[in-house]
């Protein structure tokens, strides 16, 4: 569980269609964690749930899809109107 020390400059984006509130300074990953969603993807071999681990762009556990590209959600600034979805390895 995460709590915020301050409330400022709210923005929002969507994850799989759901509106996610965020604040200035948030990455997509930190906003997801603050929202209570830890599992962002499924591992490719064992199909196990995975979520942010390093938060500094090194572990690639927080991959999501934005604009058709696979990106690190911890390295992506949360901005208004961003449409984020899970990375889908299974279907076109």
């Amino acid at each position: 569980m995460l709590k915020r020390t301050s409330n400022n400059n709210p923005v929002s984006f969507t994850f799989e269609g759901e509106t996610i509130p965020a604040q200035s300074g948030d990455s997509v990953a930190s906003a997801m964690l603050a929202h209570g969603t830890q599992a962002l993807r499924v591992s490719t071999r064992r199909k196990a749930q995975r979520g942010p681990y390093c938060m500094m762009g090194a572990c690639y556990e927080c991959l999501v899809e934005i604009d058709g590209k696979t990106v690190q959600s911890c390295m992506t600034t949360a901005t208004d109107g961003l449409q984020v979805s899970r990375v889908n390895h299974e279907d076109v």
Partner: protein
Amino acid sequence: MKTYDLAIIGAGPAGMTATTAACAQGASVCLLDEQQTPGGQIYRSLNHCDEQRGAILGEDYLYGKTLIDPLSTIDADQTFGATVWRIDENGHIYFSTHGQAHRIQARHIIIATGALERASPVPGWTLPGVMTVGAAQILIKSSGLITEGAVLAGTGPLLYTVAVQLISAGSPPTAIVDTQQPANYVTAAKYLPSALARAATLKKGLGYLAKIRSAGIPFYRAAGDLTIEGSTAAQALSFSHKGHTVRLQTDNVLLHQGVIPNTQLTRSLRLKHEWNRAQRCFHPQTSDWGISSQSNISIAGDGGGIGGAIAAQAEGHVAALGALQSLSLITTEQRDAGAQPHRQTLKKEAGLRRFLDALYPVPEEVMRPSDHTIICRCEDVTAGEIRSFVKAGCTGPNQTKAFGRCGMGPCQGRYCGTTVTEILAAENKLSHDAVGAYRVRAPIKPITLGELASLTGTGD
């Protein structure tokens, strides 16, 4: 293509200091960093720090302003949000910003890409809800997000620092599960005299431990057999303690086992590396001036071996002077005189580091995990599978890729490389230097094919 005297990769304490020092001598400098603002991980988001966050993070964090502020007054090209993904021997640097690839050239390059937290491969460490202690600190620094009800497990100075920061934020950890053993104090004692030059730092550390104690946080010392339970997310941490198994319910486990150099760029350049027995990691070989086995590439800061933020700052200065001298922009006398005070700092910090390395060694269960523990998170490869590759004739890390895709995922071996080397060294009874490490190739961070293709015909 823009050309510079000096390019500096990474705007942490080493990179910021090197940039400022080189500009002061009139060099043309380019500073590149992947984050949106300068500071590195240690002084991350300091530009946006409000009073409340500053109070939580403390004076060592706020000190970073003395390094960040000069950047706004110097004449260097500074690009943030820049992911460097390739460096060629001839000084060509390729990086991307907002999905656009760019190329610059520098006569000399200082790599100051810092450290990564050492992987803590224990059973269940891949479950959502398990993060590094550093990740929890990044949440505070960047977003003012405080992890509540966390169990901190592992050992090392950063673990205690973050525990104190969480206490200051009003959300003390529910427990600290420390893997440090009493024997470590005995081993470390002989390095204490050399560490006393940094008595103030030692005192600060003791103060952290006192704060944790007075906050009444359950503190399990000499813990072992860490296992995180849960099927789709972390539910509990169990471990052995004083002959019993303890189980703590928590959905948030923060792991830490110190930090290791981030060697992706230096490996991709095929620089010479060596195994550091005290720190249990590889680092690039460097001269006293930070110059690597390739004369136009220097390393400064934790990326060349773990020394901490204060040492990184001094190394940044020394590396800048060394680079400028090698470019004939300053004389040997100017270089030597300029480096003098920083060498004093480095000597003191090295004494402290030897003590800390001995005090917080990596536990066996993390170095060479049990068979069912996942080592390669990207490709879900377990320690047992790696050992089975050894039985099939695998002698080195690059063969573990061929045998079982270990290290072939998007993190490109950042979080499994050291563990794979440890396991192979043990199983094949070889030195770590003989086992070696993953061969790293560009792009050192994934880019799109479109970004790469945009450079068609621009190369050499």
